[in-house]
């Protein structure tokens, strides 16, 4: 889809044209926006560092490996063992889940049944923990419980739906 590539530049074009037409003090407004961005970032950085450190520590340790083995024995591999890591890591880390998807693509191919299911999973939900941290971090609010709870529940629903929809849609 080539239209997508034109959206952002097109938007800037429209904004600039409008600013010239209305004779706006564009630089002053632009600088005002930049200052706001810097203020936001100041509040965000410490929280982001705390989150990234904890996720890195967790991913480095082999906790997910143990969970995977445990789940495989419980579910009798109804959901293929290759998909469990993606399912568990998806809400935690965007880059880690991307790496797993790439791994599945390179080993089984993007058009294999595993590749298709992984694609739908990857596309259907976002990195909940990261988004919750960034968004609430920007306002320095600690009461993230509801958002996190609902977000993770929605992730669970999303991932299960992804598996079922993918199996049904591609009749795997």
């Amino acid at each position, binding site marked *: 889809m080539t239209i997508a590539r034109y959206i952002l530049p097109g938007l800037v074009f429209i904004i600039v044209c409008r600013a010239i037409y209305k004779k706006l003090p564009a630089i002053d407004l632009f600088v005002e926006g930049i200052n706001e961005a810097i203020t936001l*970032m100041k509040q965000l950085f410490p929280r982001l560092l705390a989150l*990234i450190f904890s996720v890195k520590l967790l991913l480095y340790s082999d906790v997910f490996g143990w969970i995977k083995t445990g789940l495989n024995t419980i579910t009798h591999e109804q959901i293929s063992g290759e998909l469990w890591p993606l399912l568990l890591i998806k809400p935690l880390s965007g880059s880690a889940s991307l790496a797993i998807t790439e791994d599945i693509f390179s080993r089984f191919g993007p058009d294999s049944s595993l590749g298709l299911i992984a694609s739908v999973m990857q*596309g259907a939900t976002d990195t909940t923990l990261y988004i919750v941290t960034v968004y609430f971090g920007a306002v320095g609010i600690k009461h993230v419980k509801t958002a996190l709870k609902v977000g993770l529940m929605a*992730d669970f629903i999303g991932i299960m739906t992804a598996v079922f929809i993918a199996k049904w849609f591609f009749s795997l």
Partner: protein
Amino acid sequence: MIWLVFILLGISSLLFTQQTDVLTMLMIESAKDTAMLSAHLLVLMMFWLGFMKIAEAGDLIQLLTRLMKRPLMWLFSSVDQNSQAFSYIASNICFNMLGLGNAATPFGLKAMQLLKGNNQAMTTLVILNTSGLALYPTNLIALRLAFDSREASVIILPVLITSFITTVSAIILLRVTFNARHKWVKQ
């Protein structure tokens, strides 16, 4: 709380497997990653919030907000109707639907700042972002193409169905949670 559990699990596993020397390495690495990510995010925020300010002064944002007013007012019923937050929320949702998550984040953060104190509205916005309703998964299709997929775009429809179901159920869950708490407080 969750953060402490993560650290505890990670640390105990490091102790258990006697890899005590990787801790410093992980610290340095996470600081590096955070700096990279923050730099990226800061650049995006500076430029998009800058352009947004100009667009706002040119009445362009108001146009977009008016178009999306009805669904937004239903979702964010607790926000004052004339609040500036609506324009940022509208921009955030628009960019997200186009699959341009990076451009969407600055507006979402700005909206959060304006919604401060209104827990229900803040949570709704975050949930809309985490459930990831995208009309066109740009990055995913690029990834599939990179691995020589013959039909890279076959996943559009199932992804759309799934993210729609996820978003709807997230909104329902949210409503139920907040309603339950409301009743509980009343009693």
